[in-house]
């Protein structure tokens, strides 16, 4: 009985992350992604992002942006080029429904306190939510690989990545490289 209650309680939350798309179909489609992102989205390679527990909305929009050329990456752009809208929604639903296993690349010797303070000043959680758990089109960052997060922050800063409607570009512009590294370290230890 307790399990049933837990299930129901859980279901109250699931719909916000997992779209009413076919996560099961997504599982099969995700086989092509497993080499880099891991079978269940728990990537073990620091330069490829953890996708498990990411918001479905964010994954869908990023895939769409890769396909449209609004976000570019030598590996991802060709992967996304041939995806249909349904493919993208299914993949998004699949990864969103997978559980983050806590085995990401962490920067434990980074200046965690500095990162926390710098992220407070930049009001990160106003959009990314408390604990960087993400919401809708604003990604979950908690437990993301240190190296991947840092690369994204730098890409926003030098405008290698511009598919954020200017928000992140504006945020990181005045944050020092040391603070960006500290923020990435802080994010990497969050669960």
């Amino acid at each position, binding site marked *: 009985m307790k399990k049933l209650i837990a299930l*129901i309680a859980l279901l*109250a939350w699931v719909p916000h992350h997992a779209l009413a798309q076919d996560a099961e179909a997504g599982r099969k489609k995700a086989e092509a992604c497993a080499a880099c992102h891991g079978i269940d989205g728990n990537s073990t390679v620091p330069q490829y992002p953890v996708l498990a527990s990411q918001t479905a909305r964010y994954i869908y929009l990023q895939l769409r942006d890769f396909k449209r050329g609004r976000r570019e990456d030598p590996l991802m752009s060709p992967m996304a080029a041939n995806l249909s809208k349904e493919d993208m929604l299914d993949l998004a639903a699949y990864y969103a429904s997978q559980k983050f296993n806590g085995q990401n690349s962490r920067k434990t010797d980074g200046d965690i306190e500095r990162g926390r303070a710098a992220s407070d*000043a930049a009001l990160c959680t106003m959009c990314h939510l408390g604990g960087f758990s993400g919401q*809708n089109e604003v990604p979950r960052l908690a437990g993301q690989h240190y190296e991947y997060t840092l690369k994204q922050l730098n890409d926003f800063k030098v405008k290698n990545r511009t598919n954020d409607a*200017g*928000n992140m570009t*504006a945020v990181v512009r005045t944050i020092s490289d040391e603070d960006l590294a500290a923020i990435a370290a802080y994010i990497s230890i969050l669960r």
Partner: protein
Amino acid sequence: MKVIGKSLLLAASIALAGSVSLAAAQEISGGATTSVKPMSSNLGAVTQKRLDGADMEKTDWLQVNGGYSQTRFFPGKQINTRNVKKLRPAFIFQTDVLESMETAPLVVDGVMFLTTSYNHVYAIDATTGEEYWHYIHPMGPITVYCCGPNNRGVAALDGRLFMGTLDAKLVALDAKTGTKLWETQIEDPELGYSETMAPVAADGKVLIGTNGGEYGVRGFVKAFDAETGAQLWTFYTIPEIGHEGVWATHDATGRNMLRDIAAEKRMLAERGGGFYKTLGGGVWMTPAIDRETNTVFFVVGNPSPDLYGDIRPGDNLYTNSMVAVDLHTGAYKWHYQYIAHDVWDLDAVSPPILTTAKGKDGKDRKVAIHGGKTGHIYVHDRQTGELIRFSEAMIPQENMWVLPTPEGERMLPGANGGVEWNPMAVNEKLNLAYAANLHQPMTYHVEPAEYPGGDKLWLGGAFKVIPGEEQWGRLAAVNIDTGKMVWKADTAQPLMGGVLATAGDLVFTGEGNGWFNAYDARNGKKLWSFQAGAGVNAPPVSYVVDGKQYIAVAAGGNTQLNFKRGNSVIVFSLP
């Protein structure tokens, strides 16, 4: 007992569906209402007559801000300055949702209706906290919203409850059972529309605005038929023609906003005015209604994108304005714009209050007042919109109106205010308006960005708090006849939540650090505090059941300021 009953019921529904697979269970939980204890037989319908008397109501709390005037003043004085120190919890109701709570519960005939983030609704016994029913909105696949998955409460009329949802629907529930009666799609959530505000019901209509000023929506207030959900009228907060306005150079307080009007006019000639479709102008909070003239008063939020103004030349009417429209038709009556062509997100959010104040000639006038993110309280003639006066700044202002730059410019107040969405309260006997303020020094940054399609946050820049600079809150009492601050009570953290005033000469408001406080309405002396264990960032309410007065407030923390989350409504009474 409660838990067993509930789980059996759920188990039975799942068994009926014939499967415990995820999809099947999801259908059951989606839209399901679970009932625990039989609904109180005392619960009557909230008739139009009751709503019309709600401002003077001595027992129930029938609208989120008290009544149509939204004074958030409760006439009960059983709890007062002399005995408030004895106030203690009567019960704590824990919801299933641990996330930001901005709900103001309604209390009808001893039954409390409260909401949570992600659009849960509960009906509970307002004296014991026992649950009658629990409704979970079946959220659609697409939700796009800024500042947290909040909900600020329901409206009641003729046995129905009305709630706006994050996926931009208006839902009607049977107040007795929690059963859904109808739902209407208000707008397309994929384009950035969402609902967190409590609607208001009057004259067979349900009125609701929209969020989305951070996503490039075209804001509105819409009216729906309370019985059927059919749409009756729409007032767009961005007119298709004329949104460029009068090219105002100064704000409502007479300060130059440093606009480059020539450049704006060139841009308008170049681009045309078609950007009205993405110009923002959300309406975040419940409108006030003057039932004598059937006039609806609301304030309109910022233009989109928030900080980048070059691509939206003109005054951007009716953003950052108070607007009055006809209740029956939605026809425009008047507007007053506080800041034309805003590039600071210092918009108008806190709900208008209808009260009386002295005109410039010293005679009583019917007024509509608004507490701005600028830190001023603005006092308008209700009939014409004329700005009679604005209060002195309740919090420090500096460097207004320096334009945002890519590297950031320091200006006070920060982009959260002043007075954020926090509803104010008014004690008419004392002529005081009580406003919960924030002080958050910030830098304002601009970043050119074209409309990203409605599915991404579109700020056109950023605002950041300044490390090392102190942030704090201020509960301010302002004499609306003079505009002077009569007293102020400062708090350790910026205030987000709202205020309740009572005839016991008390003022209640909560803090992000968990303290819920009562102050002497006459001098601001703190008389009582309770540590709630999570941020108290919701508007308190008061009511009477069986001759006993209660104070209720949600303690769920806050997304926007990242205050500690909780899941409870705490109800207080005297021993």
